């Protein structure tokens, strides 16, 4: 017999049986399908929530470092405002007069600088000086101590 003429049918084997799956298989498949759909929905909902939170965090936090990095003058001004508020909340009686005078002198210098249209390079050290004086005043007001000048 030539090999190419061989076939299962030619071998006259008993008919190949067909098989039925177990009766409960569809119920198992349906349950698994439902479970996967549920998990998919949970994952999508969780991912959506995480994305919203991430976006909210970025929106809330991103502008500050951008301003700080891009504009050191704005950063010093904002810091100065924060110190001013903190100092206003403390007892003014404990502040030594010379420190108050020093603060007024720095503020006058700042005002004059702005009046003549000074460059940022000139404004930055003045704002930094105002912040230093304010910080010093806050420490003194909190401790009730006197500044020591050398």
């Amino acid at each position, binding site marked *: 017999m030539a090999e190419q003429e061989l076939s*299962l*049918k030619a071998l*006259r*084997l008993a008919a190949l049986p067909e*098989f039925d799956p177990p009766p409960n298989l569809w119920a198992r*498949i349906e349950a698994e399908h439902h479970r996967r759909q549920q998990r998919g929905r949970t994952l999508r909902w969780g991912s959506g929530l995480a994305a919203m939170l991430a976006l909210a965090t970025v929106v809330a936090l991103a502008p500050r470092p951008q301003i700080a990095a891009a504009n050191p003058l704005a950063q010093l001004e904002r810091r100065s405002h924060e110190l001013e508020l903190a100092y206003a909340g403390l007892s003014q009686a404990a502040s030594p007069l010379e420190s108050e005078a020093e603060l007024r002198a720095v503020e006058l210098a700042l005002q004059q600088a702005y009046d003549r249209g000074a460059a940022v390079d000139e404004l930055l050290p003045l704002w930094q000086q105002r912040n230093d004086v304010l910080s010093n005043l806050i420490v003194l007001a909190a401790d009730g101590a006197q500044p020591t000048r050398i």
Partner: protein
Amino acid sequence: MNMTPTESRTGFAQEVDAVTLARARRGDGTAHAALYRIFSRPCFTLAMRVLGSSAAAEDIVQDVFLKMMDAIRSYRGDAPFGAWLKRMTVNAAIDQLRSQRHLDKDDPERLFANVSDTTGLLASDAHDVMALLQRLPPRARLILVLHELEGYTHKELAELFGQTESYSKSILSRSLKRLQEWLAPNTVVEMQPWPSRS
């Protein structure tokens, strides 16, 4: 719808009405169940013949119908639905054989190197074609089932296995010859007409 004679034998050629298909595409569970009722038997039978284990065949049916429920939205009707599902079943069976490293040996010589001769063949086995099929190496059994029972051409088998057509022809020829040897003492072999495929 074109149906090969083999498809009508295996049940994958059963027609599905357009309404059921449309409902299934929309995710209708009743339509999915109707498709299962039509095709679970041919799907399970094909898996049983290739894998020889009911547990493995159940896994295949589960995989195929889970995939079907997700993928049916993208089924465009270019091929008959049964043919589409049969392809999914064959792919799932191949994946399972690969995962068990049953498809490692490509060389036809090596493939049949460890296949036993008639030793251990019981008289009852000689006419139990399922028992005989399971004696063949998994890759040879797969090629035999796909070509002889599911109507795959050697061209399709070559694409499926990434081999030449002569590769599947060689394995098929050896498989049939081995079956003939196992049957020789018990069976009178008569040639009968068989639909020729390339």
